[in-house]
């Protein structure tokens, strides 16, 4: 059957995903003078970027003139336990300030210093107050700014459209196939270059800060198209998600609470983080409450509070306190800002946290402590890309933002995500446009590939007697939560792999009720394929890495191992299966290595 019966759009570049990275990529590609299509699963402006609260990390040096890109680079690498792609971390630290200023020129209004410059706040793992922010709704400001700038750049936006397959011609990507959520009709995009900006995989876990959209679409699309994935074992559990009431469990509580003076306490009222300072961070972390409290105002003569250790450290510490029986009534710990800062200051600095707790939990954070615990938040792993161009290992396929791997190593610092989206979103858009301009030969898509994708999409309607997709999704979430969580071991990871295999089998027979028009049951059934694929990747990579580092903790291999510190776990799709291999990390040049010797 020929594909001319399907609605078809043609662009030089299509960008899949319209969060911070996708919007920034589309804007840059359009500025380069090519035709751009921006495809997103939700309505424009609703992507996960709106959930980012704390800020954008950029060494502007407005609050601490001592700050510069080298310090930011060093913090980022140390936060990632040195497993980051050094070149990405370098470009990120160098370019983030200009990307923030550019956002301001496009209309973003960040909170100000007394002399009218962009104010910066403290965050975990950052030596200086570095996060440009707008109260605790920085992500909203960023997406709105990009959205309202973007709609005047001649970009065609395809909203509520889900991509299920990339199209290839030989060894290059030439488009994508998907469906309109509203009508359920198949749609084909012919494109010289494709930018993936689809975000993460957090919907595979039960307690998560991620929305329904986070089903690893871009990771899977890339892998199925032949691209490498790296670092999929590294999943960030944000230390502070809400824990009560059960229906809001997992919703994010910004690190800005601790950045602005909040501390973690156990049921005995003790600031337990002082007991969890790892050797690696001892030199830069305060070991007593007095020094920690002085640090907020005087960073030169004091070391950072352990409440602001990188997220992996804090999440493990909370996990350990709860296990030791020192948790809060609902299985978390206490996050206290009410005894440490005045009510007006809290409401001004953390307005959306104030409302979130007041309205969802009936807790007034200006007079009561919050109850918090770890929640699945971010995947460090993703599509392996060239640092400078954001191109994957497949020609014509680019990736930026959470879907790309390497930038954050084994653990991402808070605030480095929004800056990552801007820096690499721009680079991906630019290089996709350049690639499209040099595209040789005719742009043709293979009708057979389109037809096969269309058939796979519609299959769930034709089956009888299978299971409800929501049942499989929730069993997967339970499996990942209990067996591929914060603390892992070989037996559990093997068990997870077995269960995922069985779930894949069941997902192939899933049954969908109703028709194709705006049918969430059907959408969930289709999302299951990518969700199961990324869950499998994450479990397999976790089984492979026999050490503990960043967002991957093995209680059967509890220490970091220098041999593993030089290796990425790489995943590839071969003959319909995921293959795992270990490959050497790119070597950092001597002048950058020197930055780590200057100061312990």
């Amino acid at each position, binding site marked *: 059957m020929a594909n001319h019966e399907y609605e078809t759009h043609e662009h030089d570049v299509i960008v899949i995903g319209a969060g911070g990275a996708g919007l920034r990529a589309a804007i840059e590609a359009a500025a380069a003078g090519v035709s751009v299509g921006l495809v997103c699963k939700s309505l424009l402006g609703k992507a996960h970027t709106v*959930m980012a609260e704390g800020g954008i990390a950029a060494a502007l040096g407005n609050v601490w003139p001592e700050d510069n890109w080298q310090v930011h680079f060093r913090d980022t690498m140390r936060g990632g336990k040195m497993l980051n792609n050094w070149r990405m971390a370098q470009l990120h630290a160098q370019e983030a300030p200009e990307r923030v200023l550019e956002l301001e020129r496009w209309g973003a209004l960040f909170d100000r210093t007394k002399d009218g410059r962009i104010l910066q706040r403290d965050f975990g793992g950052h030596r200086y107050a570095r996060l440009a922010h707008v109260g605790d709704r920085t992500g909203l400001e960023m997406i709105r700014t990009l959205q309202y700038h973007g709609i005047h750049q001649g970009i065609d936006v395809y909203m509520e459209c889900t991509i299920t397959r990339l199209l290839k011609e030989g060894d290059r990507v030439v488009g994508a196939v998907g469906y309109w959520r509203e009508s359920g009709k198949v749609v084909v995009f012919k494109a010289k270059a494709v930018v993936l900006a689809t975000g993460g995989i957090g919907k595979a876990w039960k307690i998560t800060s991620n929305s329904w959209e986070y089903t690893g679409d871009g990771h899977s699309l890339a892998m199925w198209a032949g691209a490498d994935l790296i670092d999929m074992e590294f999943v960030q559990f944000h230390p502070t998600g809400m824990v009560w009431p059960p229906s809001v469990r997992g919703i994010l509580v910004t690190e800005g609470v601790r950045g602005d003076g909040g501390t973690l306490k156990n049921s005995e009222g003790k600031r337990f983080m002082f007991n969890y300072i790892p050797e690696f961070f001892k030199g830069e972390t305060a070991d007593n409450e007095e020094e920690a409290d002085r640090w907020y105002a005087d960073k030169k003569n004091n070391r950072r509070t352990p409440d602001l250790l990188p997220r992996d450290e804090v999440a493990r510490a909370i996990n350990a306190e709860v296990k030791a029986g020192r948790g809060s009534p609902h299985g978390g710990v206490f996050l206290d800002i009410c005894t440490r800062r005045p009510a007006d200051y809290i409401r001004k600095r953390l307005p959306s946290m104030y409302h979130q707790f007041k309205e969802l939990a009936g807790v007034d954070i200006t007079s009561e402590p919050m109850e918090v615990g770890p929640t699945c938040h971010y995947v460090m792993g993703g599509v392996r890309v060239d640092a400078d161009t954001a191109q994957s290992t497949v020609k014509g396929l680019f990736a930026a933002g959470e879907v790309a791997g390497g930038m954050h190593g084994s653990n991402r610092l808070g605030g480095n995500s929004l800056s990552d989206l801007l820096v690499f979103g721009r680079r991906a858009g630019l290089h996709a446009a350049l690639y499209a301009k040099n595209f040789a030969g005719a742009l043709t898509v293979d009708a057979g590939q389109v037809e096969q994708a269309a058939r796979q999409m519609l299959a769930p309607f034709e089956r009888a007697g299978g299971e409800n997709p929501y049942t499989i999704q929730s069993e997967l979430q339970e499996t990942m939560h209990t067996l591929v969580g914060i603390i892992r071991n070989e037996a559990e990871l093997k068990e997870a792999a077995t269960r995922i295999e069985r779930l894949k089998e069941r997902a192939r027979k899933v049954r969908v009720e109703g028709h194709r028009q705006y049918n969430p049951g059907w959408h969930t059934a289709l999302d299951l394929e990518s969700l199961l694929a990324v869950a499998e990747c994450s479990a397999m990579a976790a089984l492979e890495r026999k050490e503990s580092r960043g967002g991957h903790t093995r209680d059967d291999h509890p220490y970091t191992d220098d041999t593993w510190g030089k290796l990425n776990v790489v995943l590839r799709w071969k003959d319909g299966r995921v293959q795992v291999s270990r490959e050497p990390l790119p070597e950092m040049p001597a002048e950058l290595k020197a930055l780590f010797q200057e100061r312990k």
Partner: protein
Amino acid sequence: MPTFTMHVFRGEGRTGGFTEYKVDVDTGMVVLDVIHRIQATQAQDLAVRWNCKAGKCGSCSAEINGKPRLMCMTRMDLFTEGEAITVAPIRAFPWIRDLVTDVSYNYEKARQLPPLRPKPPEADGTHRMMQEDIDRIQEFHKCIECFLCQDVCHVIRDHEENKKVFAGPRFFIKAAGLDMHPLDTREDRRAWVKDVGGVGLCNITKCCTEVCPEHIHITDNGIIPLKERVADDMDPIVSLLRKFRGQKTS
């Protein structure tokens, strides 16, 4: 575990009506959780928009017991057990299916609104802005684009024909925010607000302010000052005075 009776509006195209579902409700659940529970256990194809489930993305707007609200921020303990609860789509926009409507009107208005035209940066490539000069605009930037203010606005809610000539409260505060932006140099936006946006049709009943989940003072801080500035533009003396002071004219 208490059981609630939910009346959810279902159907598509032209035919629809309330379908009754009995749902067990756990502590702390919000209306969106209940809708999800219905999807997972009784009606997997129940159409609903949602994303963040934390009141930040503005996707899950609906009319709950007739009142425009976010489903994710409406706690079930607002209601008493045994009370019938209705959940219907926001009705100022064309209906698609179940709880989903076509909100493209808002995206069209967004595109029409004259965007920021910033003045050049200072010598060091940055801009200086004082916090007190942006406090008011930051309030408008809190908007999550849930379009509840648009839904409740009687200018378009009951008068489809006005949609062509009326931008609605969401875009008045957007325009106000741009107009008051310290970097903006645009001269033609207020004329747009008057002639295309149709701000004159708003008669300040404040329905929009009442339903705003972000508690933005849409009318008092946004629309009324905007109306005043638009009126001043028509006054030749005020306009001349503003030019003399180096302020924005239109």
